[in-house]
């Protein structure tokens, strides 16, 4: 297991960036079954519109407080939900490692998700920020808490794949 306090900042930044890259790659490359594995068992994954987050209101597009719920999301979208075939492409920037607090790395970053539907044109689907709390585990860094605050509060048709 990594000793967080022994890491020099550049190492920590590298490890965090790697986790974030793994996160967007498993979504964008449609390896969604791997997505829950980037979280600890007792995690929080929340996708919330900025208009609610700014008012301190809880209504979320997705609210999962265990890795099991993340797995269920993936299983549901593979086997239960009906939606148009689409691709996501995340563009991630401003990865800002804010510090380490009680064994958790606090990170904020920006994302843009481009969506390509079967007709072939690519559109900006959603933009926002990630507020992450990341912990060290025997398997490497994992998300303890990932709050996705999306600026694009009008969702075109539906939001099925995680952001």
């Amino acid at each position: 297991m990594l000793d967080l306090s022994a890491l020099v900042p550049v190492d920590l930044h590298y490890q965090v960036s790697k986790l974030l890259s793994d996160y967007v790659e498993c979504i964008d490359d449609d390896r969604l079954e791997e997505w829950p594995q980037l979280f600890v068992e007792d995690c929080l994954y929340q996708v919330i519109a900025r208009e609610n987050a700014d008012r301190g209101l809880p209504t979320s597009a997705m609210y999962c407080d265990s890795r099991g719920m993340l797995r269920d999301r993936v299983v549901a979208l593979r086997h239960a939900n009906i939606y148009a075939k689409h691709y996501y492409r995340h563009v991630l920037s401003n990865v800002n490692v804010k510090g380490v607090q009680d064994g958790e790395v606090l990170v904020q970053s920006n994302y843009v998700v481009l969506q390509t539907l079967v007709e072939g044109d690519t559109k900006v689907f959603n933009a926002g920020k990630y507020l992450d709390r990341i912990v060290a585990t025997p398997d490497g860094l994992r998300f303890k808490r990932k709050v996705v605050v999306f600026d694009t509060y009008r969702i075109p048709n539906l939001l099925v794949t995680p952001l």
Partner: protein
Amino acid sequence: MNAIREPALGHLRWPTAGGSQVPYGVFTDPAIYELEQQRLFRGDAWSFVALEAEIPASGDYKSTFVGDSPVVVSRAEDGSIHAYVNRCAHRGAAICRELRGNVQNHTCVYHQWAYDLKGNLIGVPFRRGLNGQGGMPADFDMKKHGLQKLRVDAYAGLVFATFSDSVEPLQDYLGPMPCKAIDRIMSRPITVLGDQRQYVAGNWKLYAENTRDPYHASLLHLFHCTFGLYRSSQKGVSVMDAKRRHSMLTAMRGTDEGKVDGYQDTRTYNTDFTLADPSVLAGKPDFDDGVTLVILAVFPNLVVQQIANTLAVRQIIPRGVDKFELVWTQFGYADDDSEMQAIRNKQGNLIGPAGLISMEDGEAVEIVHRSIIRDQDQTSYIAMGGEQAKDAEHLVTEGSIIGFWEYYREVMGWAA
């Protein structure tokens, strides 16, 4: 004058007198969209605009729409609620440029004309000119230049507005069935939990059909059905008001054990889908009548829902012939304890544009709209339950959809 070109309604052919076969042109013809704005949204109908709980204090306001007309809903100092078109009486600029907020008065940023919370004009800069030059005409009367006001009324915390001077009072417009359903859900003070906005590339009436359709819900929404949140084999009803413009479907979870054989010819059970964490389905009854699902569709633009412990109003805002916005405002009760708050929070995964049991409705609308752009005189075929606008003590019916179309034809002035 706002004279709107009268579309030749006769150019679309309804093959039957009733509402069981709908020419696709009603979903795609821009002239029909214009006429709907005039006869439905600015006609004798009450449109839902807000929950009272969204604007609890003096000066609170919310920007919204009646049909596609921008409207501000505002609470005045005396507690009364007002609605007016979001358009300055001077040159037409929007006076409210935020979704919501709290103000002492509304001031247009363009030339700073100011209005009180009831929409009356209270200030015009340079009214008497500057240094004896310029200024408004001597006979300028502030009272004649207020914002365009709508009639407003509220029922059990739901605020409605109308452009019509002739529509019946709100409670009469709603009628006994919707009032009873609203009374049940709004029986205790509520707390707003937040909003979700879903933008759907289809005609708004496809969603009006969808919410009057108990038949699709257990076939399209596999998550719903697999976990017994809703199945057509459950006890439930599909009922309408006397004019068949509003409708309600209800279901009772846990009433179809051993009676689900009818699903053998569907894709519904062709899955070994189980939940790793079933806590999303855990809840506590909000009501003691056993009803676990209510979809109340109030003509023309409101859906009031109870799905398990999720409570919400959905406002339908038409944005043109081929798109509409759905604003979900979720709420709980003011006396919810922390356990109940957590339940509603987690069950929020079921509803809205990312909802495990509701996301497909936008998809259903879009796959219809994309396929009907040609062959405008060809029609849908709505026959489940007997091709009639009838109430049913079961859920294998499309009767409420037919009722909607029959009322729609009447309001639009289409010969029966």
